[in-house]
């Protein structure tokens, strides 16, 4: 069978089978609920409000969402023995992993974009402004970063509960560690990295001075993308050449 068709079929399997109730609906509900409960929503207007409104809780929500959903699909398939069944069909290991990455990343991205776009009128913004799209772009880059960490942990650990725990421990450990509050290590944190990317992009779109320079933007962007790329590549190498399933 053509590998593209095989990949498409596996993506469909992932979407249809594993993205069923209640996870998708629950997370979407949680996203909307969090946005609607922002105290800053009606107080200030403008893109800086969007920043403040979604930013803090948004990052927390993003970490929690990725931390619950990615291990469910990747590590959970080992626990439920779905991986044994799937890898007994004529599918390449890389294509199975890629299908899971594509399906889960697209679903998470769709949820995130929905949450941000629903929030736009609530913040008194227009869909024709750049701010929401800058936030979606920034969040997508951060989502890739979080996704790659969660996926790597899940593939190595192969246990859903332990993967969730390790991922949250790593993320919150990095986020609240005194070492990462300033200096180069701060680029590891979601708060700092998101801030640089979002502030720079919005300043660029609105043609206003940015609190961060181009060098900091490039550093934050390349740092995030390089780590994501390294983790995804490592997961692929492990999955296709080393991993054994009993």
């Amino acid at each position, binding site marked *: *069978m053509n590998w593209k068709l*095989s990949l498409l079929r596996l993506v*469909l399997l992932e979407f*249809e*089978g594993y993205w069923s109730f209640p996870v998708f609906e629950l997370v979407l509900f949680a996203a909307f609920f969090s946005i609607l409960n922002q105290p800053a929503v009606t107080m200030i207007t403008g893109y800086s409000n969007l920043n403040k409104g979604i930013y803090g809780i948004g990052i927390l929500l993003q970490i929690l969402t990725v931390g619950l959903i990615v291990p469910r699909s990747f590590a959970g398939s080992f626990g439920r023995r779905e991986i044994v069944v799937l890898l007994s069909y004529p599918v390449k290991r890389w294509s199975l992993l890629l299908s899971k990455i594509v399906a889960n990343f697209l679903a998470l991205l769709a949820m995130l974009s929905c949450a941000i776009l629903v929030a736009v009128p609530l913040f008194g913004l227009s869909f024709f402004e750049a701010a929401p799209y800058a936030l979606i772009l920034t969040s997508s880059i951060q989502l890739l970063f979080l996704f790659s960490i969660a996926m790597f942990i899940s593939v190595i650990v192969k246990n859903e509960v332990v993967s969730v725990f390790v991922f949250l421990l790593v993320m919150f450990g990095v986020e609240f560690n005194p070492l990462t509050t300033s200096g180069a290590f701060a680029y590891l944190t979601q708060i700092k990295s998101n801030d640089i990317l979002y502030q720079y992009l919005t300043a660029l779109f609105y043609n206003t001075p940015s609190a961060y320079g181009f060098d900091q933007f490039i550093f934050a962007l390349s740092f995030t993308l390089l780590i994501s790329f390294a983790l995804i590549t490592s997961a692929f190498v492990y999955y296709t050449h080393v991993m054994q*399933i009993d």
Partner: protein
Amino acid sequence: MGALSELIATESLVKFFGNITALQELDLRIPKGISGFIGPNGAGKTTTINILLGLLKPDQGKARVFGFDSWHESFRIRQKVGVLHERPSYPGAFTGQRYLEHVAAIYGVCQSPTKVQEILKTVGLSDARDRAIKTYSAGMIQRLGLAQALVGEPELAILDEPTANLDPLGRIEFLEKIKELHQKEGTDFFVSSHILPELERICDWVSIVNHGIVVAQGRTEDLTAEYSASIFKIEASDNDLLASQLKETGLVEKAWTEAGTLYCKVRNAKDLQSGLPKLLTELRLELRSFQPMTNNLEEIFKSVIGRDKE
């Protein structure tokens, strides 16, 4: 047997899980037809199957299916093989029919609803085809497992404990279906099980595995002939004493007890028949029964596993 007629061949296959040796020098030969792979729990059956499918990498030795290396060419093997795993899991949100359509598409075979419905009918799941898999009973999951193993029109179907979760009637039907599929479609089967009377009904070839080693294998009728001619079942008033004396006097090659019965492997049956009465008299033991082993798979299995323990 020539290499070409062998579907599965392993050479000195070794697999460790930490300190546990799952397979030690396993030499398996499986020809075309319906073959049984039998052994007690923990003997290494599922590990062997997982190696054959490329899910596990052997630590030593080689495994070949259709002549393809199981680790490096597993994709080519899986193109020709359908598998029903032990304790399988399928996505519960799908209906049986929808799931089989996906599997047929992955195998690249015709995925028309009619074709899938035929398979569902074959395994007795027609009525449940539009129900979500999560509502299926354990027996229905097992039938779906057989359906997904066959929907890709494989040359070989590997079934790991296929009759688990089926009621006695369901088991008979299931095995009859395997026999029928082999006769009509030409599909070969490699069936792992520890329910021997069932396997005996359908298997042309049997491989017996224990502690990760193949302890006996061959055509079912050859094995039964061999074992019934050389193995005797004896029941005396003290089996343990008789076993030790039989070995000491050299009347038997091996003697062991299994489930309260004394089994003896002999080189010459006449020696045992003439020497046993004298020995019983000397030991003042009462002979309750003496018979050559009956030619069924269960007896062979017991004697082989018991002999292996010795």
